[in-house]
């Protein structure tokens, strides 16, 4: 490779980086979506959101190419019950990572376009202006169980 080519490739990655990872340095790891059981058009997406930066950020909204609606949910535990509550945002403090996981905070996908499989694309918008688009694998109940043992 010539010097010029190397420089061009380097420049390309330098320019592409902010688009791939979001300007604020915020990133999404291990995204996945629960395969919807037959006859249902609702499911949930999970992931870990990392904020390596020095400023607080906040997840403001979500959308999915697989569903009409997507919202941010937290779980409130009662004495013998649990309730999902939609919240307007989820804070991602500086230097922290926030996990969205089964039985906890999650992204709820409603009005699925049908039975989802393989991968879906989720788009997340943050207060900092960062927009992250991630491809999330669709996991069967068995695959989801296996996954829960490794994390």
């Amino acid at each position, binding site marked *: 490779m010539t010097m010029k080519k190397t420089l061009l490739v380097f420049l390309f990655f330098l320019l592409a980086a902010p688009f791939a990872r979001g300007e604020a340095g915020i990133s999404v790891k291990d995204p996945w979506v629960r395969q919807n059981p037959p006859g249902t058009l609702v499911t949930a997406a999970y992931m870990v959101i990392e904020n390596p930066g020095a400023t607080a950020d906040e997840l403001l909204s979500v959308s999915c190419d697989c569903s009409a609606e997507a919202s941010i949910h937290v*779980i409130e535990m009662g004495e*013998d*019950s649990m309730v999902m509550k939609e919240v307007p945002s989820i804070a991602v403090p500086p230097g922290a990572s926030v996990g969205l996981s089964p039985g906890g905070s999650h992204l709820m996908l409603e009005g699925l376009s049908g039975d989802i499989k393989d991968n879906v694309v989720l788009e997340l918008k943050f207060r900092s202006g960062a927009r992250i688009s991630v491809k999330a694998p669709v996991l069967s*109940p068995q695959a989801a*169980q296996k996954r829960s043992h490794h994390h």
Partner: protein
Amino acid sequence: MKKYYLPLAALVLIALVWFGVLGFLGTGNGTFHGDEYRRPAFDFSLTDHRSQKFSLSDHTGKVILLNFGFTNCPDVCPTTLGMLGEVLDLVGDERAMALFITVDPERDTVSKLGDYIPFFHGSIVGLTGSEQAIKQVNDACGTLYSKEQETLEDDYLVIHSPAVYLIGPGGEIMLRYPKEKLDPGKIADDVKRLLL
């Protein structure tokens, strides 16, 4: 001095055996991973997801894991059902059974459950019935559920207990697993122990 040795040794031996037995009994009751939850034997009759009548009393001698939920539940119910499927695989014994009782009989018909349940595991049994019959099972387990009305008439959630209840071979409710104790390996251990 020498003549005291024998009775003393005997006393020490008796004490050791006594405390040993107590200790064994103590841990014997305490090593279940689920919370002890003694409730008397009860019975119920509902319809399963294959349209068959299901009575609890027809399954005496089995260890049954019971869970409440509804099919329109996006996160908690599928998580628990996946977990219960893994428990059944880990136990690998036909005397272990997992039941999913809907708290939304209005929408969760037999055919709806027939589509839904086998997706998680071929051996999980989905149950529905009259509002009254389902409330009776909830009462027997000491748990409550209620409809949460959303903006759209047809788009409600049902607030319910995420816990799993273990029914022993005699039909009595023995253990309760709250949300934080829903660990398939540990639940499978308890089930295996009861099937010994």
